[in-house]
């Protein structure tokens, strides 16, 4: 019987597709990709990476680059002017060394590692060095390499038999080891997440996107992680040297204290080993062994381990401590975004990720488009709700307000409750259409949501712009933003009602009467709200009331 050799090797084989500025797709090994991102021509995308894998992949790339540069004692600026080929070699050597395989002979970065006593890429050695089949490992298909929890909407991903090519296998391994949540006994979660399971679990991603390519953002993020190195050691307590967790034996019975982690450590969730590739070089089997403990004992108790892409909020149980804010069922709506950027929620003020917090220096003197990206998979107990991604173009004033969010918080404190008031008015109008009176009745909620949902969508599209514009005006004592917002909401509310009224069930015999009464009631309520905000009513004069001129 022939033994399949270790491989392919992530550090030497050109596994990874990247799209160049001209649109051509090239293939590079990991160090080549890192070198090109740091100092080469712009890369504008990773065509092989699935949407839900992108955040994990980016986090992995940044951690690898930061670790390699730190090992070399280089700054990002120095790397940026280096020769790409020389930089690639240097990064390769640094990564081999960082993973404890300075001469590159142990196959630590090999996707398939036939020797069970040795680690493969993101695959710890088996605890006793025996073949997985001979120990407590269970054979699975490669479809287990995902962060999704199986439920009826996700069976396509977790239940089907998958045969992954080496590139897809790397992305899937990274997704699992960096993003898996607690999946029941023996299936412990990865690190960098606020909760192990249920709402708020999972590893969120809040990063910057500078310009149109990936390079500027990558240099920014690596520089941020390097600049935070000592702070992560001090404040977050990651004072150790354990970087490539997969390279070390682990019996699944004990946890490593987070104190022993390197600031740029590569997270690890599960004890897995890939089966040998097929004759077409595809991976379709994975050995998995349940553990009795998580790999890391998170002493921060909230996943706050210095990751540059995790937004945080005060822990509800202990407000003095911050925990990672996972992606919630509502995704990244305007209220969540405002809170994560500027801490607008008085009860649980958010803190932006350090990648975003450091936008100031990135924007200094530059005129590139700056976007903030929010990504993450939302989970509920025992199921995956869905993947959310939102990218928002930031106005220039965001720089000022990230440093001093006070004016934004004050303005939000007035803008946000008005939305609630207007939604209440819309609900009243919808109820008049439904039953003739604005008073809530049992069971009517599901029938009247369309107008408020439309309003929410309109608000969501513009809120951040309005918020920052209001904060700017507030800062220079121009308080007209209140009335402007009230008028804007009034217009949107009327528009929302008109656009959605046909979706609300009503008595056919009284449809016109109810529509008239509902709209009149809505206008009346909105006018009062606008006047309370110091503005004149915004509604255009109704054509019915115009005098005929003939």
């Amino acid at each position, binding site marked *: 019987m022939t033994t399949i050799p270790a491989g392919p090797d992530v550090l030497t084989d050109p596994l990874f597709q990247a799209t160049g500025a001209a649109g051509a797709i090239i293939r590079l090994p990991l160090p080549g990709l890192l070198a090109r991102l740091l100092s080469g021509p712009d890369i504008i995308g990773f065509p092989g990476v699935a949407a839900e894998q992108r955040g994990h992949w980016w986090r992995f790339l940044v951690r690898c680059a930061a670790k390699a540069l730190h090992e070399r004692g280089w700054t990002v600026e120095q790397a940026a002017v280096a020769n790409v080929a020389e930089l690639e070699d240097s990064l390769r050597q640094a990564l081999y060394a960082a993973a404890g395989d300075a001469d590159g002979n142990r196959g630590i970065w090999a996707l398939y590692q036939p020797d069970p006593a040795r680690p493969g890429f993101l695959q710890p050695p088996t605890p006793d060095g025996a073949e997985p089949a001979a120990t407590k490992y269970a054979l699975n298909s490669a479809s287990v390499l995902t962060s999704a929890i199986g439920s009826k909407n996700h069976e396509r991903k977790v239940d089907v038999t998958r045969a992954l090519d080496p590139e897809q296998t790397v992305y899937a391994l990274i997704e699992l080891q960096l993003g898996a949540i607690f999946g029941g006994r023996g299936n412990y979660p990865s690190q960098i997440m606020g909760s192990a399971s249920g709402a708020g679990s999972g590893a969120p991603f809040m990063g910057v996107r500078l310009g149109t390519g990936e390079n500027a953002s990558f240099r920014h993020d690596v520089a941020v992680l390097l600049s935070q190195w000592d702070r992560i050691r001090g404040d977050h307590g990651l004072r150790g040297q354990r970087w490539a967790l997969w390279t070390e034996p682990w019996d699944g019975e004990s946890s490593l204290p987070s104190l022993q982690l390197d600031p740029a450590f590569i997270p690890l969730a599960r004890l897995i080993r890939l089966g040998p590739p097929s004759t077409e070089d595809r991976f379709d089997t994975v050995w998995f062994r349940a553990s009795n403990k998580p790999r890391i004992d998170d002493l921060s108790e909230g996943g706050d381990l210095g990751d540059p892409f995790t937004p945080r909020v005060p822990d509800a149980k202990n407000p003095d401590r911050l925990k990672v804010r996972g992606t919630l069922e509502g995704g990244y709506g305007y209220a969540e975004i405002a809170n994560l950027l500027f801490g607008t929620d008085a009860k649980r003020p958010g803190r932006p990720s350090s990648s975003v917090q450091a936008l100031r220096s990135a924007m200094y003197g530059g005129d590139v488009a700056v976007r903030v990206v929010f990504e993450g998979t939302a989970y509920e107990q025992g199921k995956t709700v869905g993947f959310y991604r939102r990218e928002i173009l930031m106005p220039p004033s965001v720089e000022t307000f990230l440093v001093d969010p006070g004016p934004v918080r004050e303005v939000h404190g007035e803008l946000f409750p008005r939305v609630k008031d207007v939604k*209440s*008015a819309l*609900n*009243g109008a919808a*109820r*008049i259409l439904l039953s*003739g*009176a*604005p*008073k*809530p009745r049992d069971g009517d909620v599901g029938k009247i949501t369309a107008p408020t949902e439309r309003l929410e969508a309109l608000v969501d599209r513009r809120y951040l712009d309005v918020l920052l514009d209001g904060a700017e005006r507030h800062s220079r004592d121009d308080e007209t933003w209140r009335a402007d917002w009230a008028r804007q909401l009034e217009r949107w509310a009327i528009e929302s009602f008109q656009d959605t009224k046909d979706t609300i069930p009503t008595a*056919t*015999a*009284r*449809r*016109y*009467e109810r*529509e*008239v*009464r509902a709209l*009149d*009631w809505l206008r009346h*309520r909105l006018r009062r709200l606008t006047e309370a905000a110091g503005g004149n009513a915004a509604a255009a004069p*109704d*054509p*019915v009331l115009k*005098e*005929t001129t*003939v």
Partner: protein
Amino acid sequence: MNAVPATTPSAPPAAESERTLATRMAGVAAYLDQLRRTNQRGTLAELRRLRPETIPGDAFWSLVDRYEIPRSEEAFWLAVLPLMVRHPHQRGVRPGKALEAAGISKARFERWLRLDRDAARREAARLFSKLKDQGFDWISLGHALRHWSEANRYELARDFFLARERREPTSTDGAD
């Protein structure tokens, strides 16, 4: 020889065509007033007897000629002229409000609004008969009966029900 493209008169824009309808309505209303003042009962009676399903007489064609009523509007004018003879034009008197003031029931008014255009024109005479000889703004009603769009009907409904609202206000108990 340079070919000169043949030019065809383009259709007037919507606003212009609406203005034309309004202008015609006003002109016809003024003409009918004149007939009333000069006691030309025969012509008025002939116009009052017009029905869409019968062939109109001289009085109608005289109006068509005088106000350049296009062929596409003839059916509309056949339907509204009898009403215009009975109810003079009174600027600013909203038809919906007038109907409400005349005591038309909500249910009857709603039923009329739900009719299609031809049926609404047919039933208008019966509905407005409750107003006796009272006048109202024909520009407003003419526009509605010509197009009978959802917006037209909503405008009529708004006049009617808001007038009623003043007598029977909706509870202001507010929402959630």
